[in-house]
């Protein structure tokens, strides 16, 4: 349920970035995928990644290839879930790094896949990919930090201070 909500928000955010015409927008679809995969649950992570990839393909400009991003995201989600099953991924920095790496791997897999499908080499735009991965990782880290922040305790403490 949370994953579906995350996917919907990611789709909306992607549309918004498209409207704003940002040069290297972050890959918002990796946020719900990473959120599920960091707990080590590979099957839900892959299913989420598959849906996210299809949504991303749907939102792509005409000339889209259904299944292109699904392929890469399913593969990366499996890897993320494998890492999540062996390590505790809670800290925002660690999650940000993982998402950064996931986006880089995703970009490389997509490039490789296009190369295979087109039958001719396609050199990846490494700088754009790095920026996109950095933005996504940063966003994932910020969101994780926000989610981990003890909002209730802080609010209760503030109320107690005010009453005192």
């Amino acid at each position, binding site marked *: 349920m949370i994953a579906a909500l995350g996917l919907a928000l990611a789709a909306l955010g992607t549309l918004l970035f498209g409207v704003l015409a940002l040069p290297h927008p972050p890959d918002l679809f990796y946020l719900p995928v990473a959120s599920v995969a960091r707990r080590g649950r*590979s099957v839900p992570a*892959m*299913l989420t990644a598959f849906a996210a990839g299809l949504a991303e393909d749907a939102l792509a400009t005409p000339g889209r290839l*259904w*299944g292109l991003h*699904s392929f890469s995201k*399913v*593969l990366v989600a499996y890897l993320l879930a494998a890492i999540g099953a062996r390590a505790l991924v809670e800290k925002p920095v660690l999650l940000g790094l993982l998402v950064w790496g996931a986006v880089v791997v995703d970009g490389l897999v997509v490039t490789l896949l296009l190369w295979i499908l*087109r*039958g001719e080499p396609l050199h990846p735009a490494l700088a754009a990919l790095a920026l996109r991965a950095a933005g996504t990782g940063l966003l994932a880290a910020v969101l994780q930090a926000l989610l981990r922040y003890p909002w209730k305790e802080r609010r209760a403490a503030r109320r107690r201070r005010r009453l005192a």
Partner: protein
Amino acid sequence: MAAPLSPARPALVLATLLGSCVILLSIQVRRSGQGTLAEEWALDASSALVRGSTGVRSAAGSLVGSFATRESLREENAALRERVAALEARLHSLHGIALERDRLVRLLGAVPAPPPGTRPARIVVIETAGPFQTALLDRGRVDGVEPGGVVVGEEGLLGRVVSAGERGARVQLLSDRTAATGVLLPRTGRVAVARGDGASGAAIQYVPAIADVTVNEEVVTSGTDGVYPRGLLLGRIAAVRRPGASLFLELPVDLAADPAREPLVFVIPPVRPDAPAPGATPAGRSEP
């Protein structure tokens, strides 16, 4: 509570999802001037299948063909072996015929103008056991062979016919102990008598010890015995011995013709005392 996932399930899900993506992509991707990737892959797979089946079929065909070829080769080989055997037998026969022909040619060369009534014959049996030395011919009266006929081989005189049946004749060989032949030593013109030694040769008798006789000297028939015509080669002097007490020389003779080596002979009609002497003289031989 959810059941724990088996280790194979995530991998299965991964393979399924990735396979779905690949199928989706292959249906969409179309290379320039060609069909979709899925069609290409299907074509590739089907062509590989067709190639495989064709290869299997051709291999099976060639296997069957090789067996058939092997069988036919085996049959051909057997037929060729039989043919080779038949040809070898025929070659053997032809070789025998050629030998016989050569013998005849030599024989005719030795007796260039055989007297009328001369008959060819084959020696079929040689009897040398005991003191008598005889041979059997495969020709008899029916063929014109009569008692008293002179038997001549390729190399020289062999003997005379002593009895003749319908289809065979017995020959007394020169080596028979009871056979006596009038002989002539052409070099000196001396006439003598040769008698068989009962083994494989003969010996000249009644030649005086003072006579001029040399070893290896030729001995021919003299025609004085009324049996053999004059001038047929008998043999050569093997040795000249002068016994101290005797008045005559001992002159053993190596007979020219060996009946064991003369399967084909001529039988010259008997010499008639009233008939003119036959002109059968060995080729190149000069009368003394």
